[in-house]
């Protein structure tokens, strides 16, 4: 990557890192907003490893988020510190990913998407029913504490790791294997690509991020319940963000999450009713007119090129 490419990211980095240090009135509010943005962006970015690079629209990505949240929450309540809890969350998610990939990756296209979505609903139900462990539908609480600043930095850090991981994978042998599966799985097999193994690897790598994000989430909000962490909105939002921004490109989910998040904020503050309908309209328009997402629009591509951020899209 050229030096020019580091300009914008560098500026963003400085801004984000420096923000908490500048005293101004709405500082905490802005940090909270950004923290949520980092969370959604991180989810979208990690989702896109499987949804974009591998080409399997995994509607079950959020399962790892919920697993991570509950793992950390439960462990925290019995005295396990956050760091160890997060490691446990990663382990749980990876194991779960490894196990489900065997049967689920035998399905294709819409079937895969639906089955993974059913998994989310299933996990929601299980979380609701295992009262003893998870607190059921009333949710799980951990000791409340103000953790705004560390969470802000942690989520941002994780987002950076997610982006870097995506860039690294896209250039690697593994990434090429994943893309070949996306393009034509049967032919990929004919040319030596061990498709089952690669799909499992992709899912496992992709699962680590929502797991940690989930753990950080419960640590931050101090309370989770099945309806929220396994909810419809939580599940579909990263997918919509990745597709809106440009699935398959590292910058896509970033663009998409920022855009959608900003749009939601705008609509909420400016209009009194029909927020959902307006968002729905935007989603429809993007789906109809921007199949490649924002990042692949000509003017946006040109801008990215000038900023040195254009990626190899093939």
């Amino acid at each position: 990557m050229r030096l020019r490419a580091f300009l914008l990211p560098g500026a963003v980095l400085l801004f984000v890192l420096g923000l908490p240090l500048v005293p101004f009135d709405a500082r905490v509010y802005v940090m909270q907003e950004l923290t949520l943005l980092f969370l959604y962006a991180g989810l979208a970015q990690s989702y896109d490893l499987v949804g974009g690079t591998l080409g399997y629209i995994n509607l079950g990505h959020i399962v790892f988020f919920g697993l991570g949240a509950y793992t950390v929450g439960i462990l925290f309540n019995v005295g396990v510190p956050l760091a160890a809890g997060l490691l446990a969350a990663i382990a749980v998610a990876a194991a779960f990913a490894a196990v489900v990939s065997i049967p689920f990756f035998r399905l294709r296209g819409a079937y895969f998407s639906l089955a993974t979505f059913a998994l989310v609903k299933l996990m929601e139900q299980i979380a609701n029913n295992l009262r003893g462990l998870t607190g059921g539908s009333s949710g799980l609480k951990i000791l409340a504490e103000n953790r705004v600043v560390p969470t802000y930095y942690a989520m941002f850090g994780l987002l950076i790791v997610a982006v870097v991981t995506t860039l690294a994978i896209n250039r690697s042998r593994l990434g090429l294997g994943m893309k070949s599966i996306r393009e034509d799985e049967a032919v990929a097999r004919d040319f030596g690509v061990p498709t089952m193994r690669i799909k499992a690897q992709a899912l496992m790598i992709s699962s680590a991020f929502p797991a940690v994000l989930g753990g950080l989430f419960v640590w931050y909000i101090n309370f989770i319940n099945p309806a929220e962490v396994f909810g419809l909105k939580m599940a579909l939002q990263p997918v919509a963000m990745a597709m809106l921004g440009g699935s398959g490109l590292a910058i896509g989910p970033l663009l998409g999450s920022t855009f959608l998040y900003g749009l939601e904020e705008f609509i909420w503050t400016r209009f009194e009713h029909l927020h959902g309908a307006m968002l729905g309209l935007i989603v429809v328009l993007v789906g109809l007119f921007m199949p490649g997402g924002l990042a692949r629009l000509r003017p946006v591509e040109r801008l990215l090129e000038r900023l040195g951020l254009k990626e190899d899209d093939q």
Partner: protein
Amino acid sequence: MDIQSVLQLVINGILGGGVYALAALGLALIFGVSGVLNLAHGEFLMLCGFVTFLGYDRLGINPFLLVFLIPPVFFALGYGFERILIRPLALRKEHVRLASATLVTLGAALIFEDVASFASAGTEFDKSIGYFIGSLTVGSVVLPSLKLIIFGLVLLLMAQLAWFLKYTYVGLAVQAVTQNARGAQLSGVNTATINGVAFGLGTFLAAAAGALEVIHSSVSPLVGLPLTLKYLCIIVMGGLGSFAGVALGGLIIGLSESIVGYFTPAWGQTVAYLLLVGVLLVRPKGLLGR
């Protein structure tokens, strides 16, 4: 637990499952023909239920009459939906098309849901035509007449669908496109029109289900998406290309929810998803899929 109660549960399950199966069949038609996950399907069910309720509540029209009058309108709506939102996506690459269609139908679902919520705010949240006609008693099993009538209508509609698919040109064309779109096209079938017909028909069935559902139960503006997803699960479980599979799937779900729900209410809902995952693990193509 005596035999009567078990029978009662089974009957309830079947009667409940029937309406599910109708809407699921509609979605199976759409999915089978166009390959699109129509996330807005459940919204049409909800909208028709809503309109049916309004027709009964505000205009005093007999709801059973409405069941015959309103769903046909939804055929046109479904056809138009496909024309405007789905047809433009036809030329895109496979996984791009799937993603675009998902976005488009999701957006549409959000719009419908929000508009319906907004329009019904201030009036009752759950629309239910509490139509009581008493019940039949066979032996010591109680068969609620209303549910029986509705089930009868469901069976009638399914029979009509089966007849349509087997004995009309359009119906055969629909089957052909479901099995092999390219082949059908090469045989002279206008797949674009058939896609539209499938959407129209599927939406019609969802609308009928909605009208029936609101008669004996209730319909809330928010019920669209969760229902759609449940139907999609039913279809996937039943297997693509097999409408019998879908009917079977709907039946199994209805039954298990009823039975399991009786013993352990909490797990009633879980069952549907557990079954789906279980079935797919064993048979990736669904129960009766080809």
